[in-house]
């Protein structure tokens, strides 16, 4: 058993049980040390690059919140002009806020221009760095501090933005979903993405014990449940050919979504003071419809 050098070194300040930290580690492990990392403002940035110490053992750059894809485009162009593009990976890692919301324009620009950058979105379904505010990745009925349930609210009342489809609609070579529990699937996808001749996008579900309100030892378990219940199917698509989307991990038998919801405090208002079966049923129906399309 060889001891591998961690490209994301210990001593970073991400929370205990952080899904994003695990995702970043797995991603870098797959990408290897010839990788330049571009990160927008967010949890990962503030916890890994606190001057004068850095957790990164690869070249790392952070510019601002909404422009990781644009900065990565510049890195790509510069490497090309320096004649150093071959053999070097460029990986941008943004959260859902920096990707689904404020960074979407820059992301779309990067895709459309065809920069050879693998963009990994570590999706923890809310603005965690600022303290659990709703993003367009926040799922239906979830509590956040800006989508609180109440007399007139079920929590977040919109469905999650289909970011993977939006990415695929650009016709880029490779788009996939992944999650940390299925690390082999995830790491294989990172390698495929990096070998693509153009932009690639991997949407990674990264549960957040703090924001989703579950004990930190269950991060991987919750991410696994998301797949097993069909809430977060794992798939890949080449060249925007969404008709031929391929499921990469098929749960042998789909578990009821209630199991996924029940372990997370952000859905606790669906269970107490009294159980809101209609809402749970509605979520189940949404998941069923999606999974039927995928044949899972």
């Amino acid at each position, binding site marked *: 058993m060889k001891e591998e050098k961690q490209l994301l070194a210990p001593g970073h300040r991400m929370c205990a049980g952080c899904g994003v930290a695990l995702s970043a580690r797995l991603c870098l492990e797959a990408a290897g040390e010839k990788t330049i990392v571009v990160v927008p403002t967010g949890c990962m940035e503030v916890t890994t690059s606190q001057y004068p110490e850095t957790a990164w053992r690869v070249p790392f750059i952070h510019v601002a919140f909404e422009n990781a894809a644009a900065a990565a485009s510049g890195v790509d*162009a*510069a490497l090309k002009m320096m004649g150093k593009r071959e053999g070097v990976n460029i990986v941008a890692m943004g959260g859902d806020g920096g990707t689904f919301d404020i960074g979407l324009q820059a992301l779309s620009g990067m895709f459309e221009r065809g920069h050879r950058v693998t963009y990994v979105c570590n999706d923890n379904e809310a603005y965690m760095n600022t303290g659990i505010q709703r993003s367009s990745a926040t799922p239906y009925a979830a509590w956040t501090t800006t989508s609180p349930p109440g007399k007139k609210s079920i929590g977040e009342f919109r469905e999650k933005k289909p970011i993977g489809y939006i990415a695929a609609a650009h016709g880029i070579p490779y788009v996939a979903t992944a999650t940390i529990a299925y690390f082999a699937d995830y790491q294989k996808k990172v390698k495929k993405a990096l070998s693509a001749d153009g932009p690639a996008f991997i949407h990674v579900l990264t549960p957040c014990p703090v924001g989703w309100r579950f004990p930190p030892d269950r991060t991987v378990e919750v991410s696994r449940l998301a797949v097993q219940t069909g809430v977060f199917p794992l798939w890949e698509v080449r060249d925007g050919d969404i008709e031929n989307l391929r499921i990469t991990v098929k749960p042998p038998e789909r578990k009821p979504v209630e199991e996924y919801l029940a372990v997370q405090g952000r859905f606790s208002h669906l269970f107490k003071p009294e159980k809101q079966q209609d809402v749970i049923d509605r979520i189940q129906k949404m998941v069923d419809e999606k999974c039927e399309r995928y044949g899972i």
Partner: protein
Amino acid sequence: MAKMILEGNQALAVGAKLCRPKVIASYPITPSTHIPEMLSEFVANGELDADFINVESEHSAISACIGAQATGVRTFTATASQGLALMHEILYVASGMRLPIVMGVANRSLSAPINIWCDHSDTMAERDSGWMQFYSENNQEALDLVIQAYRIAEDERVLLPAMVTIDAYTLTHTFEPVDVPSQKEVDEFLPPYKPVYAILDPERPITQGSFGTPEYFMEFKYSQQKAMERAKEVIDEVFREFEEKFGRKYGKIEPYRTEGADVILVTLGSMSGTGKEVVDQLREEGAKVGLIKVTVFRPFPAEELREAVRRAKVVAVIDRDISLGFSGAVFANVSASLINEEKRPLLANFIVGLGGRDVRPEDFREIVDKSFRILEAGRVEKPVEWINVSGEVP
């Protein structure tokens, strides 16, 4: 060296091209659009070996420049007005990361109402962003200042980004003869870009754009301030060297017929030429009036300015911008520069030419008349006065 008839945008683009940027990221905006157009043409026809990134916004333009410059190449971008305002937060990032990016700016007003014409509100709004600012009086200066800006910005004692500005239309769209140095001459003056600290290289991994806590943040800002102060010296050196090589003289400020002047006008940008013409006329009429053109606004040349106005009785600062609720930005800086002088001139501020209102010789004459009246009265009754504006607000 060849003499060409170029509009201001072209002069800036040609100047940038001669500096051989490797990555250009730019987004079209009136009236600076011809700059990226011309540069993309240079790239397309092989005259310039660069990657031209057609970004989807000015925000991404400057972000891509940061990414590229931080990787290790010389970059360029150009914009105006709303485009510069959209870059605002990222300008601070570029300077904080000490990346010597050079940008051309066509000085244009800021909305609302939307207006595509000249004033300096856009760059004045970025005066605190840690970028050096060079204002061109004509197209020759636009070309020359871009070349010098790279030298200054990339100097190890400086390592700060710089913007070179040209006034909307009065320069951007005005054709006039410009001496274009040869590539060889520029290559001799500006060596290839060698990044000192900022390089993204897997062989030597570093972290750029780190998180600065209160224990460190202030030191970084202090070091930027120090770099700005050192830049003053470097600017003088580079200007001198440029003069030796190309025969055109630059100064952080340019005093014009200030000897024995009772009234000194302070101007920026393209209006300076009209001002000099009026000064000549008035001198002939016997009025003791001179002019100081401010070429470098950041770092602000307070020392030179103090010296240049030492014997004046009235200094009239002509601002083509307004910090609403107070005065013009140039005035605020000029008066602050003089505040500790035992004997200082009376200071008056005149706001002109916002949103492309023409700055005419009669406007200068009016300002001079008012300044002499201040001199006679020995006091400034109205420190900030607007010229050629109707009192009636629609």
